[in-house]
């Protein structure tokens, strides 16, 4: 340790990576852990949305992301990547899906390839946290409705009004300032032909800007 391994080159993951791995309690040790995660990764690629325990989902997520990013990076002509796909995907038709469906889907993606949500756990039942893991761009309806555009929520209504008032006040203060300046300018020096045309378009603009939010 204490020196980065330079023999491998990997793309940066767009998900938060834990500093250490979870062991995922397994009698077969580290090998058994991978065999276990293999099933999850296969299921994820196959079904595109799965519900499972949080720890296992979080561990499998990294492997799925790296598998896709390696497939994008090296393509299907690369022997090592093919071996990887062969190991991680238990059903062999999914290898085709990886290279022919997922690679084109995520090629130009700038965000992570998977999404993870916290899911409610059933009560009474196992106390483990649950989660939903899904591939982006899956055919299912979205899990969480997008409420970010709901203008009728109370706080959005209030914020809208506050914003309008903020803008109005700002423009008023600006106009006052300009008026004071022009007055000063005219009072102090008589010949100010250069300044007058400069101030005029600004005030016009500000008037237009004032009208815009009302509309």
């Amino acid at each position, binding site marked *: 340790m204490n020196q*980065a391994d330079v*023999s491998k*080159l990997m793309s*940066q*993951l767009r998900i938060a990576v834990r*500093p250490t791995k979870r062991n995922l309690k397994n009698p077969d040790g*580290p090998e058994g852990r991978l065999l276990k995660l293999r099933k999850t990764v296969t299921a994820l690629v196959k079904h595109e949305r799965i519900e499972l325990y949080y720890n296992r989902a979080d561990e499998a997520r990294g492997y799925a992301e790296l598998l896709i990013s390696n497939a994008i990076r090296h393509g299907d002509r690369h022997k090592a990547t093919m071996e990887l796909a062969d190991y991680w995907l238990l059903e062999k038709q999914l290898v085709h899906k990886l290279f022919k469906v997922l690679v084109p889907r995520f090629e130009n993606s700038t965000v992570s390839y998977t999404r993870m949500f916290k899911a409610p756990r059933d009560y009474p039942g196992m106390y483990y946290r649950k989660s939903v893991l899904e591939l982006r761009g899956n055919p299912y309806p979205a899990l969480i409705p997008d409420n970010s555009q709901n203008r009728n929520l109370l706080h959005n209504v209030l914020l809208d009004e506050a914003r309008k008032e903020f803008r109005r006040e700002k423009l008023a203060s600006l106009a006052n300032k300009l008026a004071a300046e022009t007055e000063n300018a005219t009072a102090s020096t008589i010949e100010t032909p250069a300044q007058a045309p400069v101030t005029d378009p600004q005030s016009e603009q500000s008037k237009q800007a004032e009208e815009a939010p009302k509309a």
Partner: protein
Amino acid sequence: MNINVRILTKSVSQQYAFKRIVTFSTKPTQQAAVAAVPQQQEVTGPSVRKPIVPAHYRFVYPEFLPDPKIEWRNAIREKLERLDMLDRRRQIELPEFYVGSILAVTSSDPHAAGKTSRFVGICIHRERCGLRARFILRNVIDHQGIEVVYELYDPTIQKVEVLRLEKRLDDSLFYLRDALPEFSTFDENMEAEPLEEGAPVPINDIKVVLRPRPWLERWERQNLLGVANIEQYIKDKHRKSAEKVQKPWEKFDLMKQYRATIPEEEQKEIFAEVHTELHTLELQRKRNKRKRTFVKPKHLA
């Protein structure tokens, strides 16, 4: 030609004669890939793209990449460290070298006569990153194996010369400690063997001969490529236990590899920061070398 050939006993030298003829690996190993990629890039479009960092920089300057342990990382510390490393590199020529290269290090030593000491040896290990980067040189002097640990950025180092630039088949050569002394014996007055400019770094496929057990480590468990006679000394029980500790699944453990490496995007950022400086230093070094070669014939005449 070189010291090895002279020292090797006849039988050994017939089998494992040290050849300057270099075998280029046909496998798509890291070295070959590295050698191929930057050349292609240079040919295809130097005029189209702005100067990109050569892909082999991570092998030449591995110590510029920080420790991948996430808890220990800090962008500003790493930046300051790199600035210090560049400052030091402006003062002293720290050439490209690998495990398996033969180096001569001149360092100031308050206890030596003349206050400097020079040590020639083979680099058997490189480790650590940043200003802590260090390497181990090994040589056999007066039938006594000597190893010296040098810190790359230690300001008491006055000069680092690469006498023979090459790689070996393995990433670290600790097994030379258990090999016959011929394999780690190098002449102190060895002359530098310059490589042609732009030539890829040769891989020396010499296989060393181990002494009989007991060994310092269980070499049979480490899948070494550069050892000739490991089968000679191990029994079935060793073979079985070696098989037991193998971890064939690790090559599929993507996250383990990810946590041990610096991602490509970050590497690009790091090397883009130091690239121009390192490149000018390299050019300067080349110019100096040419000067030296120009001076030499005068001296001989």
